[in-house]
């Protein structure tokens, strides 16, 4: 079974707006990762946040982690049409990754 749940399942915004996606997970973690997937195929690693970090930035991406609530959020600022994709959070367990159910983001030009 999958570890996490993303919220919302789908999000549609206008280009230039910010997009926020949330992820909840169930067990203790060392880190949490966010991935992007275009057209249901290969995933691309976006950013990793360690359990002792609360916030991390990478370009237009901002990730937060609240280990007390077992939740994380991914913020994409100044969205572009090219950001249209599915976004997944993933938590490592042993040597494997457990993925959430994903948020489908659509950015309307």
């Amino acid at each position, binding site marked *: 079974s999958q570890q996490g749940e993303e919220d919302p399942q789908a999000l549609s915004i206008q280009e230039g707006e910010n997009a926020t996606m949330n992820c909840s997970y169930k067990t203790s973690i060392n880190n949490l990762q966010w991935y992007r997937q275009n057209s249901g195929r290969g995933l*691309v690693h976006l950013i990793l946040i360690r359990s002792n970090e609360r916030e991390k930035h990478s370009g237009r991406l901002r990730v937060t982690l609240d280990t007390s609530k077992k939740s994380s959020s991914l913020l994409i600022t100044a969205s572009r049409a090219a950001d249209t994709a599915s976004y997944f959070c993933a938590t490592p367990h042993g040597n494997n990754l457990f993925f959430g159910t994903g948020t489908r983001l659509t950015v309307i030009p």
Partner: protein
Amino acid sequence: GAGVSQTPSNKVTEKGKYVELRCDPISGHTALYWYRQSLGQGPEFLIYFQGTGAADDSGLPNDRFFAVRPEGSVSTLKIQRTERGDSAVYLCASSLMASGVYNEQFFGPGTRLTVL
């Protein structure tokens, strides 16, 4: 450099047939993973190799599924007596090493399997 490659990109088969899906990891990556992704879901772990051996096959759904990595590089996922419920995208990933702490995996484009 070359990323993870998977062949075929699409496979259509009939119920009851046998299929093989191939994964070429990034050169030098010792860890290799197989995932299965159904429509509208996140990837689900199937099996993990460290070198030639299957270190964790707890995600394989049943004994119709088997995977090998005989030389510690290319891996083949084998599905016997396919069922319609096996239809999904099968993703392969590799990583430089499996640390259990930080584990960035690089994914291939996947093989879309359709069982008619």
